[in-house]
Every structure is written in structure tokens, then in C-alpha cells.
């Protein structure tokens, strides 16, 4: 089945805007994706016909808000192939990782080890460094291959009996490399370690079957997956959620409070202290439903055809280098490149003049930049609504930068 991009584009009002006299060629989806009408409508509906706090009120608006919020939890769970009460809403993907680092981290002992990689986003490095400072765990790093993939050859050496958790990017936010999850899970389980995946760059490209992956924790961000800002998701195996102490204290996460002590609510409430981001959660539920309704075989083919167009076009421009897998194997639609003699920010600024939005810099992955001795890269990140005109505008802009800035 072929993919018809036009009806998809019509669902994203911003794509037909002319901004400062330029069309919108939005290729910065890895930073934040655009939002379809279905999500905007869901949030507006809550705000205009159901706005109230959740869980505690008995009036009809509170009942409606609670139902919408819990339906959103079920929508997200269906998207991941898990049970609703295994889904914890957080303020974002970073917040979800910090939750695990704090609460699961409380279960670890001094001298236990956590295995990360050199290509992780800072949000999957810094929370573990903070845990190391607090509790004395040790961090190990899987190296990265020359084509920007996590080098799993080092797994047997770096997985020790002390390793309690392996936490890796499902898809790299810089190179687009897809992790060989099966290999990681097999090795980690054999060593008795848990596995967490940072799904921020994977979830915008279709439903994920977490049980098939065999992992223990999964996190992702709403705003990268066509949802609102201010919402993220943690999934964890229920026995882990049950064992983990709370992260934040406050309303809604308690069993009973006296002036002497407090008992905790069961998960997921234990991890949702205070009033949650209700509207954003409802929007994320709508985003998951929107994604689930796409034919992902055709959509993925469409995205990867665009990646091929990017790779072919860049390779035809003198002095470009790709940081990431050379072909379409083991990658998702994120492409980083360097243009010899032109700083990535200058490439991105030039592209802005062509109406093309990309991200340039270190992409919150400074250890990866250090690994390749780079100032940064220019990153093109693709979503289902992108089309050939976006890629052709990108390539025209890169050619212009090559011709004028070096």
C-alpha cells in the first residue's frame, strides 16, 4: 500500500502556514513534533467542556475530567501493549528518567553498577551521575562504533554481576541508530540486570510492543510524539513499580497521612504527586490514538524513502559527511551530517532562510560529540507529514551554505 502524505499534512495546520514570507519545511521533529488537529481538539474539548481536577471531586466536571484522564492512560497503554495501571504520567521524558533514577535508585546499593552508552542524551546520563553522587553506584559506558551505533561487542565485558540496570536509547537522537534490543536484553538478563529504554526518538514512529521487547522500563516524551508539552510517560513492570518508593510527595500519592507518618498509594498514583498535567495527558492519549490509526508499514516506508532522499542528496554535495548508519538498515528517520568548513549553526541559520527548520549543535549529547571530536552536527529529523518538497528545500539550502559560507 502506498502512503498518501497529503491527507496527513492536512491534519497539521501549521504545515500550510506562511511564516515571515516562507513556507514551513519542518525537519526538527526530533526536538518537538507538530501537533495534529485530533490532539488540539482533545485538549480544547477538555479545557472547554471538562476542565476540573481529577480523582477527588464528586461534581460532574470532576467526573468527566477523571474519565478523560484515565482514558488517556488506557490509550497510552494500548499504544505500548501494556496495562493502563502500569503507565505513570510524568512531566516529560527527562522527568520519567529522573523518577527511575531516584526511586529505583533507592533500591540499589553502593558499588552496584549501571551501564549506559556514549551516545545517550544528557537526560540519560546526568540523572545517573546524580545518583552516583547520592548513593555511590558506579557507571559504565558502552562505546560507539564509527557509524554512530552503540557497540554491543563490549556487552560481555561491561556487564558484571554488580550491574543492576542497563539504560540505553532505543533510537539515537543524533545518529538515528536503532538499538539491537534483543541482544541487549538477552545479555542483561543473563547477567541479572534490568533494562530501561529511552524511547523519545522511537515512539513518534509507531506503536511499540514492550512485552515483545522483554525490557523492564520504558520512557518517552509527549511533545516528540505529536502530543502537548509538559507530559511524559514511564512504563515499568508492575512488580518494579510496587517495589519502588515515591519520588515526589504530596496529594494523590498517599494511602493515609497522619502527623506521624504516611503510607503510599499503589502505582501509578504513588508516582503522580499533586495535580497531574491533565490536559497534556489527554492530548497525549489522542496523539497515541492518532499514531495507532496510521498504517505503519506504509508510513515507515515513506519516512525511509525520505531518509534515502536526504542521504543521496547530501552525498552529492561536496564536503558532507553523515554521522550515523550509512544506509537504511538499523536506523530511524534521524540524519546528522557535517558540512566541511561550515559550522552546523551556520548551516541551520542558512536553512532557516529557505523555510527549513532543523536542529544544529551538540543535541544534548556532548559525550558523543567528544567521541567524534565534533563541534556539533546538523540534524534532520523526519515525521510522517514530511514530503519531497521538504527534503528538496533542505538540499537547496545546504548547497547554498556550501557555496556561500566556505
Amino acid at each position: 500500500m502506498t502512503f498518501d502524505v497529503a491527507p496527513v499534512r492536512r491534519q497539521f495546520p501549521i504545515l500550510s502556514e506562511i511564516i515571515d514570507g516562507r513556507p514551513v519545511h519542518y525537519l526538527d521533529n526530533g526536538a518537538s513534533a507538530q501537533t495534529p488537529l485530533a490532539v488540539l481538539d482533545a485538549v480544547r474539548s477538555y479545557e472547554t467542556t471538562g476542565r476540573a481536577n481529577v480523582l477527588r471531586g464528586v461534581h460532574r466536571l470532576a467526573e468527566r475530567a477523571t474519565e478523560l484522564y484515565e482514558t488517556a492512560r488506557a490509550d497510552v497503554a494500548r499504544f505500548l501493549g501494556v496495562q493502563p495501571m502500569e503507565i505513570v504520567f510524568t512531566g516529560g521524558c527527562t522527568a520519567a528518567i529522573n523518577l527511575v533514577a531516584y526511586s529505583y535508585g533507592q533500591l540499589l546499593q553502593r558499588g552496584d553498577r549501571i551501564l549506559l552508552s556514549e551516545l545517550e542524551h544528557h537526560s540519560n546520563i546526568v540523572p545517573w551521575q546524580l545518583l552516583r553522587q547520592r548513593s555511590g553506584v558506579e557507571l559504565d559506558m558502552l562505546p560507539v562504533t564509527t557509524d554512530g551505533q552503540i557497540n554491543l561487542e563490549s556487552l560481555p565485558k561491561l556487564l558484571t554481576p554488580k550491574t543492576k540496570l542497563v539504560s540505553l536509547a532505543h533510537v539515537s537522537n543524533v545518529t538515528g541508530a536503532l538499538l539491537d534490543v534483543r541482544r541487549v536484553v538477552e545479555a542483561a538478563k543473563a547477567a541479572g540486570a534490568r533494562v530501561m529504554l529511552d524511547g523519545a526518538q522511537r515512539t513518534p514512529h509507531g506503536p511499540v510492543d514492550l512485552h515483545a521487547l522483554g525490557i523492564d522500563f520504558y520512557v518517552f516524551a509527549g511533545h516528540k510524539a505529536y502530543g502537548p508539552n509538559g507530559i511524559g510517560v514511564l512504563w515499568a513492570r508492575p512488580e518494579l513499580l510496587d517495589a519502588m518508593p515515591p519520588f515526589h510527595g504530596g496529594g494523590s500519592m498517599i494511602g493515609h497521612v497522619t502527623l506521624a507518618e504516611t503510607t503510599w498509594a499503589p502505582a501509578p498514583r504513588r508516582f503522580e504527586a499533586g495535580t497531574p498535567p491533565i490536559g497534556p495527558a489527554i492530548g497525549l492519549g489522542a496523539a497515541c490514538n492518532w499514531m495507532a490509526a496510521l498504517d505503519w508499514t506504509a508510513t515507515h516506508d515513506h519516512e525511509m524513502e525520505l531518509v534515502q532522499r536526504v542521504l543521496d542528496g547530501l552525498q552529492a554535495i561536496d564536503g558532507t559527511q553523515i554521522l550515523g548508519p550509512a544506509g537504511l538498515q538499523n536506523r530511524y528517520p534521524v540524519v546528522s551530517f557535517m558540512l566541511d568548513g561550515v559550522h552546523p549553526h551556520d548551516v541551520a541559520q542558512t536553512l532557516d532562510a529557505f523555510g527549513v527548520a532543523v536542529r544544529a549543535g551538540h543535541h544534548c549529547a556532548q559525550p558523543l560529540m567528544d567521541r567524534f571530536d565534533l563541534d556539533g552536527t546538523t540534524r534532520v529529523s523526519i515525521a510522517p507529514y514530511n514530503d519531497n518538497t521538504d527534503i528538496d528545500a533542505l538540499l537547496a539550502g545546504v548547497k547554498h551554505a556550501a557555496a556561500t559560507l566556505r
Partner: protein
Amino acid sequence: MSDEIYQARIVALAKSKVGAGKLAAPTKSARRDNPLCGDRVTIDVRLDASGHIVEIAHQVRGCLLCQASAAALASIAVGRGATGVAELRQDAERALGRQPGKAHEPFDAFEPVAAHKSRQECVLLPFEALKDALA
């Protein structure tokens, strides 16, 4: 097209590489990083007894705007002390629209950056490094 930010004078300043490199025996050196974009500037200065710049060199690991700014600064900083460099910064800030008034050579070249707030720190990073070197 908004790549008027890369007008000929800015590109020429960056390509001139005035002052690019290291000093063999600097009196002082300072490095500044922009954590948001990763730009890095290292400035070496040789100072006379009264703290005025006798010689200046810079290493820029950053964008064209940062390179152009460092070159412009190196072209005009010799003979100045901390106060004189602060005056130059004011001139650069006038070009960026952060201070009232008209900027002068060579910093008037950066007037197109006034419309691009996210890039202004690129222009100012060499000033930050030089200020540290003179402190």
C-alpha cells in the same frame, strides 16, 4: 531571505582570521564556553605593565559569527585595557540592538544579527573570554 545575516562583511571578517591562533608566551589566557550551543573561545593576551593589550590571539571552536566577532575584536583591541574593551563591547551591543545608538567599525558589521536574538551570544562570547583574560 534571512541569510542576510551572512552578509559579505561578516563572512569576510570570519575568513580574515585576524588574530587566530595562540601566543607563545601569553600574560593571561581565558576560555569561555556557551553551554547552549557548544561554542568555545580561548583568548591569549600579552599585556604591558599597565594592563593594556600588546598582543592578542584567539582560538574559536564555533560558528561563523563567533569567528567574525573574535577577528573584529583582535583587529581593534591592541592598546586597550579592561575599560577600553568594555567600550568595544558596548559598541558590539549597539550593533545587536541591545544598546541605543549607532555602532562603529568594525562591529557595525554585526547589525544584521540584531534580528536574530538566538545568535547574539555567538557574537558576544569572544568579549566574555577577553573580559576574563583581563580580569
